[in-house]
């Protein structure tokens, strides 16, 4: 739920007045309020214009271009519908979608993270099962990497069409710092600890970490558990068995995290550093920290904030192997991509589906590539040479393509309620408020 590009929870510009918060329980009123400033007329009703809610960050240019393209297309005329895009600032996206979906002015098409993030919508009958649509349409069926299409599934049924780049979590490093210290990016855990020691001796914090957001901390646990116990460990938890937290791999991962913290691998101030306000990326780009475990969007973040660093000094590597772990070193965690889903209440499902087909087009994939993203379309490989950094794009594509398992970010996979509670426990583990064993037992108690 949290792990996304520029995702912030209220750290920017959201004014929650006291009255507003007091009235928060009275969401009935709130809903009317939001819809009044939201989608306006024509959404949810009327056949002419359908509304699409999208997470409003830099990547939204691609969707805006797609809407413009679709509205002029023959497909739009055949389906007698045009699309209107509502760009919602990232920090407001989830609450706004949630309140709008319960109101008369719900969007027809909406952006989501697949998996657990759409479970509540699926249970409430607010999302169209697209399995048959995809099966019967060659454009959609063959347009995307099957693993990515499947990663957003709920119980083997497709509810979404991939619409953004892939977002694996990658170990980024500062090439200049590594060259100065004469070290190589670690490929095993022992090497990683060794590199840490050398960096600390040189007065450099080994890893940048935006601890105040919590979700960057989650990435460590995701990879450690996967490398130690394989993807099955979290799969069990995701499938609803809270006892899965008792797997020895979870405890071992939590203990390794604690060792890293005690050892100063993240420095002494990481609990007040944030990713979304640019704190952690700046620490990393300025050489105060040598490495950064982050989603693939770190590249575009750095390109935006510190272009020189991104172009010449930013290196990337896969998460290292853990010697006695059973997980495949090629496994990846992160967000396979984002998805468009359709609200069953739409008055023009034909137009919605016709619009979603655009995501499989070459023009759409090219727009994503131009932005530095790696599309999840089956034609992506051929387009990567035109990326701003083809080498990085190729690394990312191969990483995902060759991964035996791609574990969806835990908070996304677990859904809002469990994900939020898990965040609380992870925050406590990383700030030392709970020990690794307390963390495990607290997680087992989550429901």
């Amino acid at each position, binding site marked *: 739920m949290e792990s996304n590009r520029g995702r912030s*929870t*209220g*750290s*920017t*510009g*959201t*004014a*929650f*007045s*006291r*009255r507003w*918060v*007091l*009235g*928060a*329980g*009275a*969401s*009935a*009123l709130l809903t009317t309020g939001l819809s009044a400033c939201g989608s306006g007329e024509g959404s949810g009703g009327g056949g002419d214009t359908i509304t699409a809610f999208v997470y409003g960050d830099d990547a939204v240019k691609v969707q805006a271009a797609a809407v413009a393209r679709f509205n002029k297309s023959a497909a739009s005329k055949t389906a007698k519908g045009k699309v209107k895009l509502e760009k919602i600032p990232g920090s407001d996206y*989830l*609450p706004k979608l*949630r*309140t709008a*979906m*319960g109101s008369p002015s719900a969007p027809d098409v909406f952006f989501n993270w697949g998996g657990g993030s759409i479970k*509540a*919508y699926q249970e*409430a009958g*607010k999302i169209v099962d697209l399995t048959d649509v995809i099966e019967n349409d060659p454009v959609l069926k063959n347009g995307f990497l099957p693993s990515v299409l499947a990663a957003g599934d709920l119980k083997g049924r497709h509810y979404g069409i991939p619409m953004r780049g892939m977002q694996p979590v990658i170990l980024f490093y500062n090439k200049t710092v590594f060259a100065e210290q004469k070290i190589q990016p670690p490929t095993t855990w022992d090497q990683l600890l060794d590199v840490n020691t050398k960096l600390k001796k040189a007065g450099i914090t080994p890893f940048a970490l935006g*601890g*105040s*957001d*919590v979700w960057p901390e989650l990435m460590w646990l995701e990879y450690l558990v996967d490398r130690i116990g394989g993807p099955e460990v979290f799969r069990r938890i995701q499938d609803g068995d809270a006892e899965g937290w008792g797997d020895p791999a979870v405890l071992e991962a939590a203990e390794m995290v604690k060792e890293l913290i005690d050892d100063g691998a993240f420095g*002494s*101030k*990481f*609990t*007040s*550093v944030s990713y979304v*306000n640019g*704190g952690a990326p*700046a*620490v990393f780009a300025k050489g*105060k920290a040598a490495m950064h475990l982050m989603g693939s969007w770190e590249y575009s973040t750095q390109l935006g904030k510190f272009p020189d660093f991104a172009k010449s000094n930013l290196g990337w590597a896969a998460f290292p192997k853990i010697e006695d772990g059973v997980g495949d070193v090629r496994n990846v965690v992160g967000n396979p991509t984002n998805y468009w889903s359709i609200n069953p209440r739409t008055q023009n499902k034909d137009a919605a589906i016709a619009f979603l087909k655009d995501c499989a087009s070459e023009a759409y994939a090219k727009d994503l590539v131009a932005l530095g993203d790696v599309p999840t379309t089956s034609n992506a490989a051929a387009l990567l040479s035109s990326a701003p950094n083809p080498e990085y794009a190729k690394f990312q594509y191969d990483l995902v393509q060759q991964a035996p398992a791609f574990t969806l970010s835990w908070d996304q996979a677990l859904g*809002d*309620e469990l994900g*939020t*509670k898990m965040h*609380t426990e992870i*925050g*406590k583990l990383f*700030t030392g*408020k*709970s020990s690794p064993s307390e963390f495990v037992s607290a997680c087992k108690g989550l429901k």
Partner: protein
Amino acid sequence: MSVTDQTVASGRGKVRAGRPGAVWALPAVLFFTFFAVVPMALAFYLSFTKWDGLGDPKPVGLANWQKLLDDPRLTQSLTLTVLLTAASWAFQTVVALLLGVWAAGRQRNRAVLSAIFFVPFLLSSTAISVLFYALLDPNFGIIQKDTLGSSSGAFLAIVFVGGWQFIPFHTLIYQGGARQIPQVLYQAAAIDGAGRYRQFFSITLPQLRHTITTSTVLIVVGSLTYFETVLILTKGGPGTDTAILPYLMYEAGFKTYDFGYASAIASALVLAATGLSLVLIRLTGFGGMRSTREGM
């Protein structure tokens, strides 16, 4: 309705001297009903339901209230809320009282400075919080320490930022209060040989006691609903160390989408705030509206 009828009736007859009719209060009453009473009643109703914001709220009886009592985080939240309220009161009252009394003097520089002091109150809480968040950045801010990452640091930062914003307002109240104190009292005291401190403690403070009550009620009720600063500065962290009640409510409502439970927390807050302000008013005798000028 009868109020309106009466007013209209009396309006039609003779002109009542002195007091305006109750109809003058109507816009305020309507606004208050629509924007405060109705949402509160809805929230109270929602507290007896389970609602994830998507389907229809389903009645669940007292389940949310039971959950509230059983929630281990409630104790922590309550403690934090009480601590925050106490610390905010102490900080804001002491500073605002001193500043207010000082600013009550008539010199020109005080008027100018008072106007400057008032500026923070004109900024939105969100803007102020974002500003302090940047200032407290551990790597690039002015205080390069792990302020917001340590429990005590985060708590003190919240108290300080809240004070920074609201002290100007309370200063204004105290300034007004202090200017109401008759100068003859000070003149008499001076003749009796009382110094500045004696004058402050024996005249200014007692004369300001209703002002203190007013300001205290505002601070206490305000601190109970403190939210934006916590959301922006700490998000309830580190861990759960600054997760005060309103933040817990936000989390229940807008992060876990358990609007029923969030409404139960909201209702509990409304009850607590109302109860607390009633108690404060009763204890301080403010409700009695006795004159501050006894003995004059």
